[in-house]
């Protein structure tokens, strides 16, 4: 779901002014900054309130409205979410990301015909890898079992690691009396859940090892998490190393992760962070730019990018980025101080 949102935001990022903003928009940005941080902590209700305040100040900000709508969607405030997505659809036209959410809202509202109409054209969109699942559920609920099966089978091929897909498919096979196929899918479901369980156990043990054992030993424990074909696990491994200060160890899995999942904000941001902490500023720059491009409202990525630019001696480029970060979180004393220093230095140069 996050990737769908990211796709929407990336497309819109260029349309929203960033650095030098009038005071009202700066106020709006500060609400958005708060909202994004609240979203990160899953405090969706509070985040929605911040988005509402931002939109009251800056009602034409499409990326913010989409974030707000997604926040409402996450809380199952379906009617409110639909209203916001519809506003954007009228403003921006038939965007795949918007139709994806509207289709899922149709599904939640038991309007299966509309859900099918919206979701069916999106199946071929590579950024929307789980459309087949929801389309399959819409067909199933509409009583079109053959089409539902086709979609769910495609969903299982597209997302073979998702236990939900296998469970849904197994249930449809069971209902259709196809015991052999059902048993195969139940097994894949069980395997998927077991794999998740083992992965979580591995993470627990890795965390324990990183906190209590020498890095060489911890590495052996943590390597169990690595899966060269799973960008999320690679990102996780990189972040675990990073959190424990093993930045060198973190770089390789994160580099693999961004190759596999180039729309992952988390992976780019983490890679940039590690390279920054290793003082490999030049190398840190592209990942951080990518991260900020994917999520221009994330305070942490902006400050990191500004710091990297500053470390490279490019204060002219750092200043607008830090301005943008400050707008998102004007209460951060350290950023405010740095910003004043940069502004002063900038004036001095002129």
């Amino acid at each position, binding site marked *: 779901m996050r990737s769908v949102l990211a796709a929407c935001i990336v497309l819109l990022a260029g349309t929203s002014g960033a650095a030098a903003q009038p005071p009202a928009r700066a106020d709006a940005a500060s609400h958005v900054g708060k909202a994004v941080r609240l979203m990160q902590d899953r405090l969706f209700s509070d985040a929605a309130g911040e988005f509402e305040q931002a939109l009251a100040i800056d009602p034409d900000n499409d990326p913010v409205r989409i974030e707000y709508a997604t926040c409402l969607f996450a809380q199952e405030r379906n009617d409110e979410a639909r209203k916001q997505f519809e506003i954007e659809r009228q403003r921006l036209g038939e965007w795949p990301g918007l139709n994806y959410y509207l289709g899922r809202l149709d599904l939640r509202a038991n309007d299966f015909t509309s859900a099918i109409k919206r979701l069916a054209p999106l199946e071929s969109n590579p950024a929307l890898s789980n459309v087949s699942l929801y389309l399959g559920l819409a067909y199933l609920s509409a009583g079109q079992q053959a089409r539902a099966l086709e979609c769910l089978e495609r969903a299982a091929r597209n997302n073979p690691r998702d236990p939900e897909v296998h469970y849904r498919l197994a249930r449809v096979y069971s209902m*259709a009396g196809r015991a052999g196929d059902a048993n195969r899918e139940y097994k894949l479901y069980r395997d998927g859940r077991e794999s998740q369980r083992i992965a979580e156990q591995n993470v627990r043990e890795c965390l324990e090892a990183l906190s209590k054992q020498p890095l060489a030993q911890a590495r052996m424990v943590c390597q169990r998490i690595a899966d060269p074909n799973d960008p999320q696990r690679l990102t996780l491994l990189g972040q675990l190393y990073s959190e424990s200060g093993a930045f060198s160890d973190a770089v390789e899995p994160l580099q693999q992760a961004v190759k596999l999942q180039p729309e992952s904000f988390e992976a780019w941001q983490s890679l940039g962070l590690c390279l920054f902490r290793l003082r490999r500023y030049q190398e840190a720059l592209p990942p951080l730019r990518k991260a900020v491009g994917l999520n221009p409202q994330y305070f942490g990525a902006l400050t990191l990018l500004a710091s990297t630019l500053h470390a490279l001696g490019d204060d002219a480029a750092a200043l607008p980025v830090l301005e943008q970060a400050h707008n998102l979180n004007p209460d951060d004393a350290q950023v405010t101080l740095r910003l004043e220093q940069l502004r002063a230095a900038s004036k001095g140069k002129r």
Partner: protein
Amino acid sequence: MTRRDMLWLLAAGVPGARAQQPSGMASRGIGPQPRGKPSGLPFHARFTDVAAQAGLRAPVIYGPDGRVDYILESMGCGVAFLDYDNDGWLDLFVLSGTRREGPVAGATNRLYKNNRDGTFTDVTERAGLTRQDWACGVTIGDYNNDGFDDIFISQWGQNALYRNNGDGTFTDVTREAGLLHEGTRWGTGCTWVDYNRDGLLDLFIAHYVVFDFQSIQATGQNPNCSFRGVPVYCGPRSLQPERCLLYRNNGDGTFTDVTRSAGIDRAAPTFGLTAMAADYLGSGWQDIYVASDSTPSLLFRNQQDGSFAEQGLELGLAVNEDGTEQAGMGLAVGDFDTDGALDLLKTHFSEDTAVLYRNVGRGGFEDVTMRSGLGVETRYVSWGAGIQDFDNDGLPDLFWATGGIYPEVEKAHPDYPFKTPRVLFRNLGNGKFEELTAAAGPAISEAHSSRGVAFGDFDNDGDMDILIMNVNEPPSLLRNDVSGGGHWLKVKLLGTKSNRSAIGATVIAAYGGRRQAQAVTAQSSYLSVNDPRLHFGLGAAQSADLEILWPSGLRESVRAVSADRLVTIREGAGVVKAESFPAPRQGR
């Protein structure tokens, strides 16, 4: 899953779920669906809590008041409707816990004898049932087929079997029956079940977690165990789950542990709570469903050869429709769509819905929660539940009790209260339900932290009343006063070849174009026991045809049974007694 997600789960000690509460309980983390327009239809049941005037004034002690240090102190216990003296009036059995610091004066399991005038007398001591322990579940049934219902209690520690002596007293026969186990275990769900069709009630027991006060960290000792930032006790997912047990009744007052030979031990250990046995699949053999907390729920399917195969997943009863396990607490069986097949209801943690499973025959069960309208209620931690026709309109309604588990959290977050109201959904008859509050009487909106619930007609006035266990408060007794003129029929079964209590029998009542199935259970709701007399609301119909599938396998039909009476049916002999209840007393 991002690292933040993962760490969030790990902080909770929670493996595997997509959305979890940071306390070690599974929850989807969803909010309520919007409520539609009220139907405007009248609801003819009205509930009033008459516990105090009925004489139920002793609080049910369960852990400290105002805080919970350990998971054991939060789970509460069951209650039962039974007729221990065979006088035709329901008596009450209310379990009790204790406190870790030491015995509490007056805390005991309590037997209340029905005085037949709306009041009860506490006969616990006279009956020989005084006991203060961490009691959890209860199952009632005549295990020795002597004509009197016996009581089995599951506990943390050792379980207890009380044989009914038939003279108003009971004898603890746990040891002689061979039901003592090694070490300390936390028995929760328990149910009598004749799994091998020999006419004797066998005994199934579920367990929750491996627990002792010494090795488990108390609230505040583990920084990873918190709820909304408030330190709380560690939830089950940080603890070790346990397997279930099955004892075969030897017919001589003793039992043999057949867990292994019956295949019960092949199921993965879970955090088992309520256990409910019935013929869910219409095979004529008893299956056992176990609500499991934060782990897949279990459906032990009877293989008809003395063994079971756990097939919860294959029958659609283990997880929700997303494939995610839920925090299974309470269970109810009934037939909400009146198609003659038994459906199931299971209750869960807050920020999740209860789940309603519709029996679809060959494919097992289908999760119809959202389409039936239950998605509007996700606010409360939900416990004992029932599928019962409260207003006698011929359509079974849904009820469950609720109650928080973290009294500490309320102080920091008033929006997470410890005491919460009851939930009642009326059946609209089109596969959909509508939640009612004020329309169902004052007792529905009263807030308590409740656990076990039993459904029965304690005042013999032709409707279903409700007994509820409240943590560290007296129980609630919700008297139902039905208006509207809907007809009803009660069915009491007496087994002959089957166990005498007829536990496991299914009755299908055909009336007004509907076919409603009900099962005689020995445990349901949350660790509780309902009135063994099945109650069918009939609406406008003045008679019903009955089809009985006895646990022995015998099918028996009884045609055109007149409404508004209790009929007693003896296995193989049809109706042997029909009783009209006295008119409701004046002054209500």
